[in-house]
């Protein structure tokens, strides 16, 4: 492996990489070694046009752009020599010659690379007395993105993104010289499954999402690492949180999962967290069949009473469980133990499926179907068939995926059951039949791990705290198990402890306990899963 020296520090690099790629591989780019850049992006082709990443390479007379200069063994690179600094200042000054400098009204302010680099590497005063380019403002590029041509610095990341990632190529540079502008073709809007990524990779305030713009200044947001739960890909995200509210999802780089991208549908799924149709209070169906809101303890008591009655009269074998593929590994582990201790007759998992695209979007529209399968929850189709034909008297159901066409085909299939205990996060027809309903938390409100479609265990942590009494499935089941007197259930649920127990008892999860999983997750080990 070639070794290069950057600002006096030796770096081992892979053959065939460029200087900037090598710095990125080593994890030091803008993280110890500052080589500011606009057009270069780790997941797009090299453009070499912004010229900001120029560095000095010993033995080469001209400054070289770090993004496109292949490393050679023994290369000595200087990223902050006086020549480099002067060139950088020159580029920054020229980039600002035509920039409107409207930061106070620009939604990108605070996370703008032009702003950041101007502070960091630019000169403080403008020498330009000339009028700036007057171009189109507030251009509607498509259903998701608004474009400000004046702010654009023509790094062309967005153009390359559309060509290279979704392959749709809606964007193009028209014109020449300082008449160059990014445009769409007539009648062909920027509209693809990944369109909003262009706002993330736009280093300036030229491309912004219609959804997020003007909602909140970004410096009020905390970026909480998390996982998108829209499908089984498990795209790594940052949840932008302020005032106990999620304002946006942005992709978080994980080269083993989603690179730096996320699909628009997944990005917009942040709205599910604080959605108006979230279930807020436990419900217990009263004597007249009318659901009545109650507190958690009373709901647990009511549910335990119904389950105990069935167990005592007909045996636990008439009780079935349907797991939710949205729950965490920890929740599902507790559910599996609960069902085993209860002696439930059957269990499975219902997973809603849909379109996959071979890029990020997976057919399983849930974050943890893999985890459910790993804990022995097989597909619930056969079980649902049995339920439809009256083979089950009691059902403990997590989530409402089982109502789908592939499973129960509607809530009517549950109408004749003696007991339906439901744990769910959002409103659905389940409410109409559940005898006891527990509101549950979503991944953005939980400690725990999720296992993606490829068997990678990834961590979530609470980004927001629900304003109402929603609890994780594990916590509800822990309380229910204790109320039923099941062995090993003391009513407490601690995700870390459960995760530890899980990793000790399920060999495949040996290295995947909550405390052991880093920010980019770990692949499941081999060996038995349950």
């Amino acid at each position, binding site marked *: 492996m070639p070794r290069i020296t950057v600002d006096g520090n030796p770096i081992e690099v892979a053959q065939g990489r460029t200087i900037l790629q090598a710095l990125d591989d080593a994890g030091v780019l803008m993280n110890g070694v500052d080589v500011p850049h606009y057009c270069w992006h780790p997941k797009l082709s090299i453009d070499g046009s912004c010229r900001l990443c120029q560095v000095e390479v010993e033995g080469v007379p*001209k400054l070289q752009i770090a993004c496109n200069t292949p490393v050679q063994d023994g290369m000595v690179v200087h990223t902050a020599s006086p020549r480099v600094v002067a060139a950088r200042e020159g580029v920054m000054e020229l980039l600002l010659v035509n920039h409107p400098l409207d930061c106070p009204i620009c939604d990108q302010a605070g996370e703008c690379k032009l702003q950041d680099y101007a502070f960091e590497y630019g000169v403080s005063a403008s*020498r330009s007395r000339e009028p700036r380019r007057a171009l189109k403002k507030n251009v509607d590029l498509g259903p998701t993105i608004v474009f400000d041509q004046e702010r654009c610095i023509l790094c062309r990341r967005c153009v390359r993104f559309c060509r290279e990632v979704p392959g749709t190529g809606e964007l193009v540079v028209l014109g020449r010289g300082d008449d160059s502008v990014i445009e769409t073709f007539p009648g062909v809007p920027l509209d693809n499954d990944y369109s909003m990524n262009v706002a993330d990779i736009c280093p300036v305030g030229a491309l912004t999402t219609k959804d997020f713009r003007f909602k909140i200044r970004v410096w009020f947001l905390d970026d909480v690492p998390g996982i998108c739960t829209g499908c089984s890909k498990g795209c790594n995200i940052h949840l932008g949180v302020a005032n106990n509210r999620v304002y946006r999802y942005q992709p978080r780089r994980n080269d083993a999962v989603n690179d730096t991208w996320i699909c628009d549908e997944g990005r917009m799924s942040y709205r599910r967290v604080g959605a108006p149709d979230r279930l807020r209070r436990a419900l217990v169906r009263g004597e007249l069949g009318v659901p009545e809101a109650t507190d958690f303890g009373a709901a647990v008591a009511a549910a335990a009473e119904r389950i105990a009655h069935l167990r005592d009269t007909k045996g636990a074998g008439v009780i079935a469980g349907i797991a939710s593929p949205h729950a965490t590994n920890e929740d599902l582990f507790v559910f599996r133990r609960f069902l085993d201790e209860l002696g439930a007759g059957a269990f499975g998992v219902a997973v809603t499926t849909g379109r996959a695209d071979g890029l990020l979007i997976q057919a399983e529209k849930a974050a943890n179907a893999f985890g459910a399968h790993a804990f022995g929850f097989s597909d619930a189709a056969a079980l649902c068939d049995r339920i439809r034909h009256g083979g089950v008297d009691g059902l403990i159901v997590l989530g409402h995926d089982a109502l789908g066409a592939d499973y129960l085909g509607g809530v009517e299939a549950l109408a004749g059951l003696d007991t339906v205990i439901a744990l769910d996060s959002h409103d659905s027809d389940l409410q109409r039949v559940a005898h006891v309903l527990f509101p549950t938390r979503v991944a953005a409100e939980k400690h725990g791990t999720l296992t993606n479609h490829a068997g990678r265990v990834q961590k979530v942590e609470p980004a927001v705290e629900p304003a109402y009494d929603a609890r994780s499935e594990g916590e509800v089941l822990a309380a229910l198990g204790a109320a039923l007197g099941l062995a090993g259930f003391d009513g407490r649920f601690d995700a870390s402890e459960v995760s530890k127990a899980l990793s000790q008892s399920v060999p495949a999860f040996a290295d995947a306990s909550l405390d052991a999983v880093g920010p980019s997750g770990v692949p499941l080990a081999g060996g038995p899963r349950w």
Partner: protein
Amino acid sequence: MLTVPYTTQYLTEHFADGDYTTLAGYERKGGYRAARVALTQMSPADVIQLVKDSGLQGRGGAGFSTGMKWSFMPAGGDAPKYLVCNADESEPGSFKDRILLERGAHQMLEGILIAAWATGADKTFVYIRGEYAQPAVTLQRCIDEAYAAGYLGANVMRTGFRHDVVMQRGAGAYICGEETGLLESLEGKKGQPRKKPPFPAQYGAFGMPTTVNNVETFSHVPHIVANGAEWFRGFGTEKSPGTTIFGVSGHVARPGLYELPLGTRLDEIVFEHAGGVPGGRKVKGVIPGGMSMPILPAGQLDVPMANEHLRERKTMLGTGGVMVMDETTCMVRVACVITYFFRDESCGQCTQCREGTGWLNKITNRIERGAGSEEDLAILLDVAAKMEGQTICAFADAAAWPIQGLLRHFRGDFEEHVRQRKCPFSSSFEL
């Protein structure tokens, strides 16, 4: 037949003969004999060595060793290799390739054929500027004649060597004369130079190994093969052998095309060949090699026209387009024209070029209007310095150098505009 004043050497010797543009006429003057010698008696390596020994430098502006460039092409391999003939002559002040296309297309094609043999190229794309409508017609006729006579095609001169020549007309952009901008345009894309690496010899037209040479460069090749490297070195200077065609324009009595040995003194070209400035006026400045080369003032015209000498005066031979300006010329207006051109023609990829060319143009326009300041002169030089040598292609250099040259030698003109708050040249040309 030639309607402009001219002097001739081996390149243009027969250009007055209208018959020379036909294959029969060209053959009567010994045409295609050099190609036959190369293909039947010389190995490709021999040809490359000969051209290296001749010291032929590219005539497109950069002056790189032609033999060296050919040697960069990978030998062998199954993938096709291409030559590209750059006939997108678009440097303001340069019009030599036009005559070589109109009057000597077969000479150029013979040079292409020899180069193809040397580099193992399967096909040559001649990229000709869109405005060269008549040369395109002539060239296509000559290509057709060469095919019909077996000089091109599947079995060149019955040697078994295959070579095809395809003409592609451009659509009018200066940057499509830059070799990789040309390749992009040739492929049907927007004409924007490519970042290097990879270089065209590895990844050129349609991703294949490619060598790009100028029309005139190819045109010298048959003469080198026919007469030898020593003969070629008999022209010009030791470091810059051969002749070139100087296209002289501007305030001279006889603007025209003068084929002269490299190293001919600039004042000889301006005063003896082109007849000096008419009307008894004095020369003010001369751009020696097309608009992108820095200007020389009247006192510095005693320079041999070869890069090793011109570099000492901080300018270069470029394309040999000599532009003469007399004492009535406002050099700020010249700056306005030059910066307007480069602003308009910048492809817009690189920051320094995209923003710098526009800024230079705005400042020079403001100075010409009388609204400039002393500080503007410093900014002009500073912006030019920031553009120079920092971009994907040499366009930004080409835009920066003339401004540096004008301020180096004619700073007084700029300062006078600032002081008088107007243009002091009442009779200067219209913008």
